[in-house]
């Protein structure tokens, strides 16, 4: 499965956060790089949805859907700020 980018999870993130998030700025907790969500590296079926830092490759966020509940692990994010 090829890497996509944050555009591909615009719908999922809007479902979770209730707002357009592809223009939000994500800051990597590992390397400190800040960039728009649209430019992050995304794997859709990893399993689960995995968002990685384009600079250092660290995992920023993992979303796993269990029945109708999205479980979000955002430990790799130092910040996620809507633009």
């Amino acid at each position, binding site marked *: *499965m*090829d*890497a*996509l*980018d*944050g*555009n*591909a999870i*615009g*719908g999922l993130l*809007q*479902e979770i956060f*209730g*707002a*357009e998030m*592809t*223009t939000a700025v994500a800051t990597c907790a590992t390397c400190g790089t800040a960039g*728009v*969500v*649209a*430019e992050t590296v995304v794997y859709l079926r990893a399993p689960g949805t995995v968002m990685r830092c384009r600079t250092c490759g660290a995992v920023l966020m993992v979303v796993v859907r269990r029945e109708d509940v999205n479980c979000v692990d955002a430990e790799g994010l130092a910040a996620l700020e809507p633009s």
Partner: protein
Amino acid sequence: MAGTAVRGRLTWQVATVGSVSDETASVRTLELDVPGWAGHQAGQHLDVRLTADDGYVAERSYSIASAPDEPVMITVERLADGEVSPYLTEEVRPGDDFEIRGPIGGYFVWPWQDPDSPLLLLAGGSGVVPFRSILRHRAKIGSTVPARLLYSARSLPDVIYHAELATPRDDVEVIYTLTRQQPAGWTGHSGRVTDALLGEVAWPPGQHPIAYVCGPTAFVESVAAGLVGLGYPPDRVKTERYGGVGGP
């Protein structure tokens, strides 16, 4: 609060297929009737959800192919091992319905913050779809910002929207490169987009252009890196990756 639409939340809604038109042997455009559609921006996408009789659910994202003031249209390329695209390109008939949600995305949209920036669109294969929306919108709003589309396709019969793109429009240039097969007497470019071709086609960075790159992941990465190599600031190169499928 069941059934209450929350502001900002995306909700699945039923889209009914209006007209269906073939673009190429494996690509089809569907016009959708979506009651209460919130309206979209050029470059946005929507999610399609298909639910099988046994409850199995498949979701895919498709770029919106129509301008903001037109009915919602998506253009779908059939993937041999696809779960959703064979249905949308072979099975679906006018009057059928399926679930969608959207519009989605705020990054890969035009106009952007500087509406006077020369527009550079770079498409690999079906990555041309959001650019139809952008170019139609550009024409509808009477924008005179110069625009160039560099479109990498496998062969001439694989070019999506060929007739529309061949229609001369003010200040829009369309440049093709055919990667796998060229017709006899082809005078356009051949092969993948090289840095040399990019250098020929791209507006000089001094003109403060804005570039949009859309297509298979490998195409997008290579073209975006090429533009940055030419001196484009990374924040003036907007990218949308479709993965490894349906490449040019």
